């Protein structure tokens, strides 16, 4: 293949889509960060941010290869095929006339891998050791996400000759990752929350979101980025991308409005946290379906998610697990709604003939969807359990009770999220952690100073 065959328009769209999807992880950091108490906002954000670092590196080393390398029995790709990105330069992928550089596809999918892992962190707010999260994120990416992405996203002959079993054998539709990403992360969140245990005071102490403007910022940027996620998954600037774009708009609208109606009816008031949550629930639900349903179908799917998810939130109180920021209620439930709904709403003219139940297609596709969804859920749950237990009984998953009371920002990161006070709360020592120790500067040590007067001048 030569550079001449590259379609610059399609490439431009996937390039910007990749950047949009990458933005979703900081957006998630704000969405999650605003929901916790102010004493753990930094830790909450850091779990997403550090995941961007870890997964990016794993991805170019061997992760992309595990997901898109030539398949070993449909289960996992050959980790060596593209190790360290070898063999990806000057290569194009895609249908004739619409080819894009393989490296652009690598980047686009990297952003998916990152956010899948970061999503899980919502379950563990306020109480997980940061070191344990780093180990968890690494293991979970390698053992759970890379294989699952292979199952769902690796189509035969696209990057490598043979791809994953759900995409090619089961033939479940999952356009942009309802199974590999949302069901996967949601199932992991459930298991991890169970192993980790509840936050201190869960169910008795108020744990209000500390900054709802930050939550809304996260939701707004997520919506924006999700156009790259869904419409970018067309891997070209074409009518399919346009359909996915519109569906990403209206399903989200439907879910948000439905969530607000549920709240109004049940709790008495429509809330901004509800709107933000509804946005995310709608985006999750339309993710697998965005290219296989009509805009009216998308509204229906969104509305379903906007009803099912808020109702599902009470499950955590019922069953007593503490999925702090409702990854299960939003991503697992929303992902299931969307993935299964394809079996109901798929329109033959959009899918190349396969129609859902409501469009006269019978139960077959619904069955395929269910297999895809539950396979990922089961695998994710099981392997997550093993990883979580392994960490628990080695380095430990959870911070000490004292640290949890003080807040993980200070104890894990030695930082404080906000300091709006005009009162300069003083400190005895401000000291440079020196690095180049040739001629040490003397830190001002107030304990040895002898007169208030002198100090007053220095600290003026």
């Amino acid at each position: 293949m030569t550079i001449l065959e590259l379609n610059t328009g399609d490439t431009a769209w996937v390039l910007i889509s990749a950047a949009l999807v990458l933005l979703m992880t900081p957006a998630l950091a704000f969405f999650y960060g605003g929901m916790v108490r102010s004493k753990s906002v930094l830790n909450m954000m850091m779990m997403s941010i550090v995941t961007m670092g870890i997964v990016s590196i794993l991805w170019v080393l061997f992760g992309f290869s595990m997901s898109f390398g030539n398949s070993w029995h449909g289960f996992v790709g050959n980790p060596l095929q593209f190790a360290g990105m070898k063999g990806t330069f000057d290569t194009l992928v895609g249908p004739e006339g619409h080819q894009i550089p393989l490296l652009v596809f690598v980047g686009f999918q990297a952003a998916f891998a990152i956010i899948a892992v970061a999503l899980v962190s919502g379950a563990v707010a306020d109480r997980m050791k940061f070191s344990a999260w780093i180990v968890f994120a690494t293991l979970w990416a390698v053992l759970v996400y890379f294989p699952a992405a292979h199952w769902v996203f690796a189509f035969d002959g696209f990057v490598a000759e043979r791809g994953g079993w759900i995409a090619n054998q089961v033939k479940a539709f999952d356009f942009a990752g309802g199974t590999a990403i949302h069901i996967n992360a949601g199932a992991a969140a459930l298991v991890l929350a169970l192993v980790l245990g509840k936050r201190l005071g869960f169910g008795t102490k108020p744990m209000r979101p500390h900054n709802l403007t930050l939550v809304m910022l996260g939701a707004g940027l997520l919506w924006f980025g999700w156009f790259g996620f869904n419409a970018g998954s067309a891997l070209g600037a074409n009518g399919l991308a346009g359909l996915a774009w519109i569906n990403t708009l209206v399903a989200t609208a439907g879910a948000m409005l439905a969530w607000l109606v549920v709240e109004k009816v049940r709790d008495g008031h429509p809330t901004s946290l509800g709107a933000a949550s509804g946005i995310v629930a709608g985006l999750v639900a339309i993710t697998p379906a965005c290219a296989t349903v009509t805009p009216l179908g998308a509204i229906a799917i969104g509305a379903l998610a906007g009803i099912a998810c808020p109702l599902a939130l009470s499950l955590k109180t019922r069953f007593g697990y503490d999925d702090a920021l409702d990854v299960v209620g939003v991503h697992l439930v929303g992902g299931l709604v969307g993935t299964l709904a394809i079996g109901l709403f798929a329109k033959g003219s959009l899918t190349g003939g396969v129609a859902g139940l409501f469009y006269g297609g019978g139960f077959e596709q619904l069955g395929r969807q269910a297999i895809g969804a539950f396979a990922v859920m089961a695998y994710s749950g099981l392997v997550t359990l093993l990883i979580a237990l392994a960490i628990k009984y080695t380095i430990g998953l959870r911070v000490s009770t004292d640290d949890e009371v003080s807040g993980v920002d200070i104890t894990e990161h030695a930082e404080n999220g906000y300091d709006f006070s005009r009162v300069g709360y003083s400190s005895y020592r401000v000291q440079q952690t020196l690095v180049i120790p040739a001629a040490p500067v003397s830190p001002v040590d107030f304990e040895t100073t002898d007169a208030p007067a002198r100090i007053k001048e220095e600290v003026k």
Partner: protein
Amino acid sequence: MKLITAIVQPTILQTVQVALAQYGVTGMTVSEASGFARQRGHTEVYRGTEYTIDFISKARIEVLATDEKADRIVQVICDAARTGSVGDGKVWVSTLDQVVRIRTSETGDDAI
């Protein structure tokens, strides 16, 4: 009439509130404060610069009480707020010349 002021751990406030309410105290005023004392502060590090933060978040509770109830209220607060670790805080009592309920202009014990 007495004014009872208590400096307590911020996380224990709910417990104190409940205890006081159960004892029959119908009102209190709370504000935020920072204490510096035996309890060690923490260290923060920003870009390699280390700050020792000596001031620790505390809740400040003020309760107006009649003379006879004051001692018992101090007792209730101490019982509720005691965890046994450094930083549990202080309670002090002072005598007031006058208390007025703004809404009704009632004064003295009636105003409490």
